[in-house]
């Protein structure tokens, strides 16, 4: 769920509770105020009545007859018979009809015991509530409507405020999402007005700078290490060369020395491949030249021709003329050469390697498929990793860096390359160069 929606929903829930509590309390407060006002009236009536009795302005009979005196709404006087459980004034709300046959109405009543001519009477004074209730209702409704409006305004207001204050946050998130490889570490997050977001951005900047620095240190180290290894390895190699032609050594020693030399040559090839990868990764190659891909493909095929013939492999080339693209010719050659060589190696004798360039909207889509044992789904993911070899050729002296070189070249140029399981069998290498590059 989105952050903004979460905050809005939380706001809605809090506001809803506030609304309910405010509504109930308002209702209770208004009602209490109304009742206290009514009760005061009733109390006044009572005192007034007692005063009038004392001054003989009114008689019991009159009250019996008309049920009210002057402004009094409605009073009842009943002589106390037996014992009455009434110690002091008792206020309550009742529903009652004043005249027989009329519908009942809501009244506030005050019951108390008064003395008239030495006799105890129960005096009940009534005051209508209905009029007050409609006032209470109006106040309540008015207030609730106001609250609802406020509710709406805060909801949309929040939405707008959140959207604006969180804008830098969302821009940070989308930038982070844009990071696909170590080449994207060079982005900077801007300074923004919100302290926390600012802290986040600065922390990310520091982190990315550290990551970038550590990646580049690592790459630089690999480059230096492989470079530094090459010279001593060359020296050992030349020394073994001299030993191999030393007449005084016996056959067995010569054989052992030759094995040492083979190992050294492998080690040199390994260092050299690592050096190439790190030089590509460290961007030592310029990628803004023109590559005549058709020429390079033809050249790579002719360089491998002897091996293709030696294995009686048929090359099926069905591509149209390939385009001229931007990039580094040397690296493109290395890419095509590595892939073709790989295909020649994996394809059994007297089978076929196909080179196609299907029609697409992309600038170039090159597919090189072999008829070898193919690769599994799992391997298509791993095949480009350094030192990754398929189980089938694990025992050979191959350093397993050929495809890692290919991958580093694709990454440098932002080309898309991957392996697929071939249509019939074997493995198919795809190189896709988008038109917008």
């Amino acid at each position, binding site marked *: 769920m989105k952050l903004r929606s979460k905050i809005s929903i939380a706001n809605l829930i809090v506001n809803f509770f506030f609304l309910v509590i405010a509504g109930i309390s308002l209702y209770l407060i208004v009602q209490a105020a109304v009742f206290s006002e009514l009760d005061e009236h009733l109390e006044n009536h009572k005192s007034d009545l007692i005063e009038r009795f004392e001054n003989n302005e009114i008689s019991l009979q009159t009250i019996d007859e008309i049920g009210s005196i002057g402004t009094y709404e409605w009073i009842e006087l009943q002589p106390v018979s037996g014992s009455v459980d009434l110690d002091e004034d008792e206020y309550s709300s009742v529903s009652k009809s004043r005249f027989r046959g009329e519908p009942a109405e809501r009244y506030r009543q005050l019951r108390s015991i008064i003395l008239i001519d030495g006799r105890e009477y129960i005096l009940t004074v009534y005051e209508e509530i209905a009029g007050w209730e409609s006032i209470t209702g109006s106040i309540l409704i008015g207030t609730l409507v106001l609250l609802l409006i406020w509710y709406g305004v805060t909801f949309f207001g929040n939405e707008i405020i959140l959207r604006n204050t969180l804008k830098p946050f969302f821009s940070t998130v989308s930038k982070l999402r844009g990071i696909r490889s170590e080449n994207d570490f060079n982005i900077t997050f801007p300074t923004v007005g919100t302290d926390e977001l600012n802290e986040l951005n600065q922390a990310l900047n520091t982190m990315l700078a550290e990551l970038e620095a550590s990646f580049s240190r690592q790459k630089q180290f690999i480059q230096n290490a492989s470079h530094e290894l090459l010279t001593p390895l060359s020296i050992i190699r030349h020394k073994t060369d001299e030993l191999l032609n030393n007449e005084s050594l016996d056959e067995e020693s010569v054989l052992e020395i030759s094995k040492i030399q083979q190992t050294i040559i492998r080690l040199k090839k390994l260092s050299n491949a690592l*050096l190439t990868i790190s030089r590509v990764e460290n961007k030592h190659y310029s990628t803004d030249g023109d590559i005549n891909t058709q020429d390079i493909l033809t050249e790579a095929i002719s*360089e491998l021709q*002897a091996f293709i013939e030696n294995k009686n492999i048929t090359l099926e080339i069905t591509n149209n003329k390939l385009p001229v693209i931007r990039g580094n010719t040397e690296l493109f050659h290395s890419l095509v050469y590595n892939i073709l060589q790989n295909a020649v190696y994996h394809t059994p004798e007297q089978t076929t390697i196909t080179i196609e360039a299907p029609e697409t909207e992309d600038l170039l889509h090159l597919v090189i498929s072999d008829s070898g044992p193919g690769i599994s789904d799992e391997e298509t993911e791993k095949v480009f990793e350094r030192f990754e070899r398929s189980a089938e050729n694990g025992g050979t002296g191959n350093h397993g860096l050929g495809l890692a070189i290919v991958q580093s070249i694709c990454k440098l140029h932002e080309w898309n390359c991957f392996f697929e399981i071939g249509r019939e069998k074997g493995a198919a290498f795809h190189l896709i160069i988008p038109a917008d590059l």
Partner: protein
Amino acid sequence: MRALIVEDEPLLRESLENHLEKEGFTIDTAERKQTAEQLITADEYDLLLLDLGLPDGDGFDVLSTLKSTGADTATIILSARGELEDRVKGLEFGSDDYLPKPFSMLELTARIHAVLRRRYKIHDNFVKAGSLTVHLDHNTVSLNDHPIDLTDSEYRILRYLALNKNKTVTRFALSEHIWGDKVDERFSLDFINSHIKNLRKKLSEQNVGDVIKTVYGIGYRLEDS
């Protein structure tokens, strides 16, 4: 044989490349000092053609790097700087020859042959092994003055064995010197085997004695049978 051309002028580099290709070399090129130094420490070359003024440094550095690896690559400096000082410095840094620009390709060819002869300690432009003669200057092999028809790869193998006559050439070295370093040893070694087989077959058809000796587990050696 492998050659490295270090030259930053693209047109000259290309024509040198074409020329050496015709001479049967496997060629790598570099336009910058850094690339040249990497190639020279990583690979084995028989010949280095070196321009002194490179965009990222001095060609003499490449010579020092080469020297530090202990390689005995034959080196010819090609330079527009014709000063005596540079020539002397170049020779002192271990270069075998110095050719001031501009030069003719014919002269370059002659000098290449000369430095290679010196490197392999041979005196003529041909090597004899039994009744077989390997001509180094015009890419042919003959038996008692009758040329033998060989493929390009076969000639290159035989020539490299001839240059190293009476020395063991490992299959690795042979593969490297014929196809360069790019080829994967996974199949280049088998490939050498099958080429040597063909070569022996052709030579025995011509009644040449067994001049190519197999050094078990290591490689081959050309001898007078």
